[in-house]
Structures are given as structure tokens and as C-alpha cells.
């Protein structure tokens, strides 16, 4: 079980949270302007990296808020958490992989 540092509440066990998938997948401002290819990419295509992954978590049994986590998907080590709306911290993709 992960120990997840909520930027609002501090470290809490994973079962207090809900996973929200890849972060920074912004809904296109004008969906009807997109062709099918671009719309499908927004809906379905994901980076799914083996290494550093920016992802959303929601502290559903705590403050209830969404925030972002940088986690290495091989070691599951969390290297940073930051509030929703903030840019992804600029860590090299390999740093967490060790």
C-alpha cells in the first residue's frame, strides 16, 4: 500500500485516496473543432510510461481534493506531490528510477 503525501493533509495511506489517471490531460477548449483522431487521442491515448509518471489522486476520505503526484512506475516511489493547476515539477525522467 502506498503512503501518499496529500499536499493539504500530509501523509496518508493509499486506501484514503482514489486514483484519477494521467495528469495534465487537458480537455480541449473547443471539442467540435477537433477531428476524430484528435478527439480519440484526448479520450483514450495515454503515455503509460515505465518510469516517472504524473498522475492525479483524489483524497476522497480526507480533504476531498484532487492533486497531482509524480511517481516512478517501476519502484512506485513518489518523488513529488503538487496542487492541481500547478505545472509538473521538472525532474529528469530517470532520477527516480535509480
Amino acid at each position: 500500500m502506498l503512503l501518499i503525501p496529500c499536499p493539504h493533509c500530509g501523509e496518508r495511506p493509499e486506501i484514503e485516496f482514489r486514483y484519477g489517471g494521467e495528469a495534465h490531460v487537458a480537455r480541449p477548449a473547443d471539442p467540435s473543432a477537433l477531428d476524430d483522431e484528435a478527439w480519440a487521442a484526448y479520450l483514450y491515448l495515454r503515455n503509460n510510461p515505465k518510469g516517472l509518471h504524473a498522475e492525479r489522486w483524489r483524497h476522497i476520505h480526507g480533504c476531498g481534493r484532487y492533486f497531482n503526484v509524480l511517481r516512478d512506475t517501476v519502484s512506485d516511489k513518489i518523488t513529488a506531490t503538487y496542487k492541481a493547476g500547478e505545472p509538473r515539477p521538472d525532474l529528469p525522467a530517470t532520477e527516480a528510477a535509480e
Partner: protein
Amino acid sequence: MQRFSGLDLFLRALGRHQTWKPQWREPEPKAAYDAVIVGGGGHGLGAAYYLAKEFGLRNIAVLEKGWIGGGNTGRNTTIIRSNYLFDESAALYDHAVKLWEGLSQELNYNVMFSQRGVLMLAHNIHDIQSFKRHVHANRVNGVDNEWLTPEQVKEFCPALNVGPNMRYPILGGALQRRGGTARHDAVAWGYARAADALGVDIIQNCEVTAINRDAQGRVSGVETTRGPIRTTKVGVSAAGHTSVLMQMAGLRMPLESYPLQALVSEPVKPAFNCVVMSNTIHAYISQSDKGEMVIGAGTDAYTSYSQRGALHIATHTLDAICELVPMFRRLRMLRKWGGIVDVTPDRSPILAKLPVPGLYVNCGWGTGGFKATPGAGHLLAWTMAKDEPHPINAPFTLERFRDGRLIDEAAAAAVAH
């Protein structure tokens, strides 16, 4: 290939089993092949076998980064069934079940396919309605599936608690009698041995690190940890690592990789005669021929390549098992492990040629592709050999996500093994 038989086994026993030879070669990679399969799981090895056997392509290699069958093939709970809701899926999975039925003979290798029946339990009104719908849809598609009342459930699987004292009582079940289990390793080894005999090079400890393309964008070869290999056809069958490989060809995939775990108990005498699945309370159980109770748990909540799986997920499943089969409360668990499963948005696989010429993929089987092993291998071979899909896998394209033609088994079943 040395053929196995009862007589052969008897004679070798007289010689104290000292005369067995390795069942496949360990060749060095050649500089070039007509086709290369990436991933030595059951699917990839099966594809190589059918390419050689049915399509006459003998100068081919299977590249495996670890050891063959060491991925999900060797980590899964081996449930085999074909009672999926949609026409496309029923055709796809039943194609595989039909191949399973003759596989031990075809490969001269006992894959221990045991059609002991797969029973899916219903615990609420929604389950009952949805399973009955499956039963009818399956029958229309010529796939066996029948509805059992709680009494019939008890008769078919006496170890189950069908009493009213459960938190989620058993209200009935859907039974596919042709479903069952098979020996996971034997499937990989059987295909490897048969493919090797047809000239296929099976190359282990060989990780693909890049996919090369020529000036026109066609596939021209792969880079590996054992040197570059030239080829014009690459079939990727790498389960949880598909996104990583596709990125090498510049493609993003509609896939996410999750750890899925399983666990086994200490071995005991025969006590559980069929396969039982409960999607609603997350429990899958059967007994291996060695005597262990083989239990499947859920996926972790988050994407990962860690091949572990969290303990609270396994605990949740054991809660359910203890309610379903009270006598298992005293069983001790022996070990648990995880595999990385590649999940698509509609929980149906992608088995297709890709926009990159010369590149083919077989992926997205997620939590439930062991059952499809012979079928997926056969259809990937067909698609690579003819450069077009077989009618059975034609709907399972990458483009279905763009075109809105999802095959939404996710909505139909919620979970699938």
C-alpha cells in the same frame, strides 16, 4: 522433435530419466529474419508456431527479454472460458476454446486442458439480469452457457456456501461447462518446442530496445540487447510492456498497465471440483492438479510496472473466498505475486496491423488473455502472414477508438478473467 508417448515415458523411466534432452535450442540471434515476434509469452510463441506451421514462414525469431513464459503467461490463474457478451468477442474467445480442445494432440505436449466448468456467481438482481442476458446472447452465438439456480449451484459445486447468512448471498450462477483451466507453463513450453522443431529461433535474454524504420517509414529492424536484427515484419506481443515498445515506433496507445495479482494456498487433497468466479465480490478460485487453491485478486488502483500488487487487494479477495467457501478459512496461503496487465478503455484486445507498415500488435488482453492464447497466436500469425486481419480479429483494430466502434466488454462484465 522427440515425440512424447506413454511408451517413451515408460522406457525412459527404466533408464532413470537420464536421457531427456532440452526441448528447444538456444540459438544466437541471426543478422536478419523474415519476421520477428517481440515477447515470448504464450501468445508470441503461439504466433511463431502458427506462422511456421500454417503460413510457411520458417526464418523467424521470437525475442524474449527474460525467459519464455515468465510474463503473464506464467503468472495467471489460467481460467479459460468464452461466454463473452458481444458477437465479436464470442467469436474471438470461442475460436481460442476450440483450439484449446485439440491443443495437447496438436503440440504432442500435455497442456493439461481441463474442461471442469467455469461457474460465475450472481449476488444481486443486476448480476442475475446481466448473466441471463449473457446466457441468451451466448446461445445465439453457439457458445454454451447455462443459468443455475442456487440449488443447482450447490449441486455443481458442493463446497460453496449458498445459505442466506452471507453478506452477499449466492442467488444463482452462469455455468460454461466447456470452460476450465490449463497448465500455464506447459502452454509456453509446448508452443516453444513445436515452433523450434519447425525452425523458429527462440531467443531468450534478448530485450528489444528500439524499432528501426526506413526512409519511407516502414519497419526495417529492431535493436536488441544482443545486437541489431534486420526484418521487415515485427509483431509485438508484449502484454504489459506494449506501450513501452510502441513508443519506440512513435505510437501512443490506448493502454494503461496495472499490476494484477494472484496467490496460492498450501497444497491439499482434491476439494474443489470446478472454477468459480465472482466479479461482484472479486474472487476467482480453482484447484491446481498439485493441490493448491489458485486465487485471483484484483488490480491495483494505479498504473505500475512493479509486478507486486498491494496486500490490501489480496486481503479483500480472501475475505470474499472465506465467505464463499467457509472450509477454506483454515487454509494457509503459500505465496503471492503480480503480473503487469495492459488494459484498454473497452477491455477488449487490439489484434491488428498498425499505421506503421510492417508493424503488427497483439495487446490489450488485460486481465483475461490466457484463455485466448491459441486463438491470439493463430490470428496474429494470420494477420502478419497475409498483411490483413482474419475476419475474427478484423473488428479488434486500433482505429476502433477513433471510429467509435468500441467492443465494450467493460460495460458488459465490469471485470473479466
